[in-house]
């Protein structure tokens, strides 16, 4: 908290220093945001869990930009209506949170950043194996891929066409999880999640990243990124214990790794070929094995398949492998994409309302699980976005996968967003 206040005050001070007399502070601020109303109804839901939920959320972003200085903040507010009826229906999904607050300074051949920020690392569409920087929010709908901001400092040096970054994550944060009645609570009802994060070397042990990105400007265009990480792994494991009140409690554990990451996109004609891969060398941990995770994908677009509409064909394959059999396996680590194939379609209407339809299936080749989904996105009156989505999950019948623990379910969801 002290570090956060320090960052906030530093940002204001930097902004004041950059300010000239001929303009006010507010002249250089831009903002954007949205207020969303999301209703989800589970046609098939696990017993005892809430059969529906209505969530109101707001995302507010403001950016101050003056000369080479940029200060950015992003705040998210969320209220699940079930939480207003405290008691058995409480999902623990209501909060106000600062996701980003950072200062960024641009030099002639580089840039520096300090503060809380979100980053995206990846190339694939369904699961981004390489996107390890920010932890995923366990109170969000898992299909939204919402992430938590991370306090870090970065220095980037630009090369002619690429960039080399040194990033230090300053604090390993614990994360909240939704409570049992929410469909996407992953543990049985009698196991309570404790936010107390267990770490191998303390929460202030820094995470270090060295990242290099570049593009090859040849007949076949290639964007590539390689990253080395030393610090806490984005994969976590859980243990349970009895509390003094005789309740079963589970904790998240963070362990140290050396990690090698790459994500790349190759363009040949109308097809994108994508790769995300990691090799993780786990440092001194009896529970967790070294592992590899590879994702391969392709995206081919057929333009103007009907009038102005384009059709995108998507295929992705994921393989997760632990390298030591005596340690926890993919099931015990809740890894969903351990041997999975995704096949999907994206139909973009190319109309003024930016309507699109996305649909597909994810097939687990080891545990006979199937996930089907369909999304329709459109815009109304230039300020409202509508998203309708349908999902069906058929979990494994005899293996304790994440979907098996959550239970079979079918849901429809409608999101109406007001943007400003």
């Amino acid at each position, binding site marked *: 908290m002290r570090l956060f206040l320090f960052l906030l005050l530093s940002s204001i001070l930097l902004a004041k220093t950059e300010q000239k007399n001929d303009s006010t502070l507010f002249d250089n601020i831009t903002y*954007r945001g*949205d207020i969303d109303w999301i209703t989800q109804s589970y046609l098939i839901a696990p017993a005892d869990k809430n059969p529906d939920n209505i969530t109101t959320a707001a995302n507010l972003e403001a950016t101050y930009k003056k000369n080479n200085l*940029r200060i950015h903040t992003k705040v998210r507010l969320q209220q699940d209506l079930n939480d207003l009826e405290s008691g058995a229906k409480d999902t623990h999904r209501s909060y106000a949170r600062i996701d980003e607050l950072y200062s*960024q300074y*641009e030099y002639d051949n580089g840039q520096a950043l300090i503060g809380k920020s*979100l*980053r*995206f690392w*990846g*190339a694939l569409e369904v699961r981004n194996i390489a996107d390890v920087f920010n932890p995923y929010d366990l109170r969000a709908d898992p299909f939204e891929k919402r992430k938590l901001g991370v306090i870090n400092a970065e220095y980037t040096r*630009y090369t002619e*066409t690429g*960039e080399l970054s040194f990033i230090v994550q300053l604090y390993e944060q614990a994360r909240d999880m939704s409570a049992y009645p929410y469909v996407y609570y992953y543990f049985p009802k009698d196991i309570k999640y404790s936010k107390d994060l267990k770490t191998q070397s303390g929460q202030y042990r820094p995470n270090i990243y060295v990242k290099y*990105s570049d*593009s090859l*400007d040849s*007949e076949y*265009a290639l*964007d590539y990124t390689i990253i080395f990480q030393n610090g806490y792994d984005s994969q976590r494991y859980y243990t349970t214990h009895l509390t003094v009140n005789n309740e079963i409690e589970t904790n998240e554990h963070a362990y140290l790794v050396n990690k090698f990451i790459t994500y790349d*996109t190759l*363009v040949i*004609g*109308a*097809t*994108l070929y994508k790769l995300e891969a990691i090799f993780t060398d786990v440092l001194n941990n009896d529970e967790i094995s070294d592992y590899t995770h590879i994702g391969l994908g392709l*995206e*081919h*677009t057929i*333009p*103007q398949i009907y*009038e*102005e509409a*384009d059709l995108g064909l998507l295929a992705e394959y994921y393989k997760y492998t632990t390298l030591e059999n005596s340690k926890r396996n993919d099931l015990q680590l809740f890894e969903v994409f351990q041997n999975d194939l995704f096949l999907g379609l994206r139909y973009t209407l*190319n*109309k*003024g*309302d*930016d309507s699109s339809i996305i649909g597909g299936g994810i097939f687990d080749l080891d545990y006979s699980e199937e996930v089907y989904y369909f999304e329709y996105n459109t*815009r109304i009156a*230039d*300020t409202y*976005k509508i998203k309708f989505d349908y999902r069906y999950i058929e979990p494994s019948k005899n293996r304790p996968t994440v979907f098996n623990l959550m239970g079979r379910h079918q849901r429809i969801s409608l999101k109406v*967003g007001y*943007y*400003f």
Partner: protein
Amino acid sequence: MLKIFILIFFSINLFAITNQEVANRCETVMKGFKSSQAEMQMTLINANKQRRTRDMSMMTLESNSGNKSLMTFLSPADVKGTKFLNHEHLNRDDDQWLYLPALKRVKRIASSSKSGSFMGSEFSYEDLSSFNPKKYIFKGDAKIGMLNSKKVYIGERIPKSKNSGYTKEISYVDTKNFLIQKVDYYDRKHELLKTATFDKYKKISGKWRVAQMTMVNHQNHKKTILKWSNEKIKLHLRQKDFNKRVLKK
């Protein structure tokens, strides 16, 4: 009689100009802005005359090997901050990236679908790329005709790219200043698909720049008007201002 015929024959040939020469002159007239920065407003008009507007800002860097441009979307609100970076190439597909601010994601785009609609408008990506004669095949001499009381060269050009959405384009070029006034685009079935009208040009720092153009689609009866405003040129923009990394700034 023979003398008159010979005189007319030589006169015609003396003043004849090939389509290639017209195109080269068009390029010369528009070339030399070095770099530019402008605000753009795109108005989409559907067959029922309903209007929607889109606002953008755009930076362009002129280059002999293909221009580079960075477009930032300002409205509608849900796409505010989305950026589109394009590196044009004369002999291969352009390099294109899209930045999605909500996800902080830079996404590579396969640019081979040049004929695809740009932001739901009647403009395709290839309509918005810079005019360069090397992208076309020209044959024969330009014809002379009239367009809105202006004397114009009328000529045919055929896109070289196999990914072009057009089989033929007919351009109408002002004979006085070599500014393109109109282009008719023919689709893959060789039918008239669209007409671009260059409604307004502005001279900025001694260079002609397009200030407004309208694209009418004859097949779906939709129309898009594109207006440039507050344009500045020769801004000393550099190659590095159009690197992929600028998308995240």
